[in-house]
């Protein structure tokens, strides 16, 4: 077909070799970077199968000498009845799942409603409101930690799952509203007009026309919101205090506060907490990249 195919037909081994050498430096560099990116997590993963004794051994071992699952059993508190769980990780995982899922659903519902209004409906003040939302997006969370702590205590929401759900919803809404309003604006207006002629109301074109056409945008928001709430630490540590509401990152960080860090259980907990993140990274990478670079690339 082309010149390359002909040369490879003439001498396939030599052609392949040339290609390998030309690309070797490039791939060597890529692999080095990939190694640097991967190694810290691989090291944690390997350590999670070691005993606490082996973790503290010098010189350190690379592969676990005795491959043990105990750390995972401890982290998940699969202990004989009557014994105290080793850590708060089991509670943390439960709380994290509940809080992240509810927050994500709320962000999607409220974000779609507001995104449609800002993107497609005319009403006085919509520009000012949208710009205000965008400015709030730049606000560092730490700035609100003190008033939120005091307010949460006053309304008896301190150390509940609800306070984290509400807080996470608010902090992730500006991005969701903005992304969806931009996305909705790009959907041809004629579709909506046709639906209105066919008897849809202005309220029902949102679920019937806009949402089905916006599944990629909704998926992006859902995945990024889930990741953000799953990984969030600042509000989780300032607005909760006990196992009734603390999330996995807080459970992990609090293990470090003890006078001797139980690395073995902690590494297992870190791996467990990363499982949903890794699954999303492998199966929904497209959406993550789109979301992270949205706006930055669009401009």
């Amino acid at each position, binding site marked *: 077909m082309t010149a390359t195919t002909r040369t490879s037909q003439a001498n396939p081994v030599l052609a392949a070799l040339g290609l390998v050498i030309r690309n070797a430096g490039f791939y060597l560099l890529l692999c080095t970077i990939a190694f640097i990116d991967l190694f810290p997590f691989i090291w944690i993963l390997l350590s999670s199968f070691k005993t606490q004794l082996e973790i*503290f051994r010098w010189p350190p071992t690379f592969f676990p000498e005795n491959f043990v699952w105990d750390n995972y059993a401890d982290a998940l508190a699969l202990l004989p009845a009557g014994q105290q769980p080793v850590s708060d990780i089991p509670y943390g995982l439960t709380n994290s799942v509940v809080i992240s899922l509810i927050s994500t659903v709320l962000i999607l519902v409220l974000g779609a*409603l507001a995104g449609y*209004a800002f993107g497609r409906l005319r009403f006085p003040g919509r520009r000012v409101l949208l710009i205000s939302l965008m400015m709030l997006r*730049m606000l560092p969370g*730490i700035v609100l930690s003190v008033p*939120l702590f005091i307010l949460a205590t006053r309304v008896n929401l301190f150390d509940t799952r609800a306070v984290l759900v509400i807080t996470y919803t608010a902090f992730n809404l500006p991005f969701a509203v903005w992304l969806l309003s931009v996305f909705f604006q790009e959907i041809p207006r004629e579709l909506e007009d046709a639906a209105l002629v066919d008897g849809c109301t202005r309220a029902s074109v949102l679920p019937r026309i806009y949402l089905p056409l916006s599944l990629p945008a909704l998926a992006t928001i859902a995945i990024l919101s889930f990741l953000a709430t799953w990984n969030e630490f600042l509000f989780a540590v300032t607005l909760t205090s006990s196992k009734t509401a603390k999330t996995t990152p807080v459970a992990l960080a609090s293990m470090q506060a003890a006078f001797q860090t139980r690395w073995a259980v902690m590494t297992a907990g870190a791996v467990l907490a*990363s499982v949903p993140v890794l699954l999303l990274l492998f199966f929904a990478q497209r959406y993550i990249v789109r979301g992270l670079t949205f*706006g930055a690339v669009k401009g």
Partner: protein
Amino acid sequence: MSPNMSLQSKPASQRASTPWDAWRDWVRSHSEMLLGYSFVAPALLVVGAVMVYPILFNLNIATRKWDWSTPFDAPKPFVGMANFADLIASDRFVNSLKVSLLLVLFALLVEYILGLGLALILNRQFRGRRIFRTIFILPMVLAPIIVGIQWRYLLSGNFGIINYVMFQLGVDPPAFLSDPKYGLPILVLVDSWMYVPFVSLILLAGLQQIPQEVQEAAEVDGAGSLARFWNITLPLLGSSTAIVLLLRGTEIFRTFDVVYVLTGGGPGRSTEVLGILLYRIAFGEGNFGMAAALAVIISILGMVIGGLFLRFIRTETRLF
């Protein structure tokens, strides 16, 4: 209140004859506006309760003596700007400001240079693009807490693999986590580890928008590769650069999670960034008044930093 309360219309002569009819007509003619407000209301309510009201409440706290010495329900005495004055005069505020600004400066520098280099390398077609991209994104999507734990584990003086490797290479490893000298460099290292791939992703998208013809024309005119990079690639990357510096600059300025687990602000106060200082003042010492004052200062500084980037680097994006 619902815009489609009554769908049966009356003859025109009877319309607006009573206040009720006038109201209904008004609702019908303003249905788009009413629908708009009712659709944005839930989102604005949540954002208002969690973000807007607390901002105002924070200003109130900042002007009061509000700490653990006063009972929870007791009224807190108004002290004007005393919290601000005390804070600005304190050594640790000056220290934290310095640490935060140095972190922003050095982390941005490292991330931009390495990110640009990586973007230039990746700006070609190659096999395995997807798998490498997946790996490069991993550090960014892991929980910052877990990133902190990872690096604390790697850098540990007693059993850390990095120390061990340095020993094997015949280098005497420094006490990474207990020598104040290494505090800031380690934060720069870990932040770069997390975000160099992100920076390169944005810059790569910018590189791919540069028309090939421009580069070729310059090449025909005899411009060397360095001259082309300096006079074409970099200037045309202007808006990507602006975005990336703005996003990363403001993000680095608010760093909290990684520092919390990795160094906790130490050794000494070498990594006590503004966020950690606020956390310590508020939840360690219980001085909410002063912490609220610091929050106001952090917000203003954050806006100034964002504004500076926007001002110095010309950009025509629709974004901000």
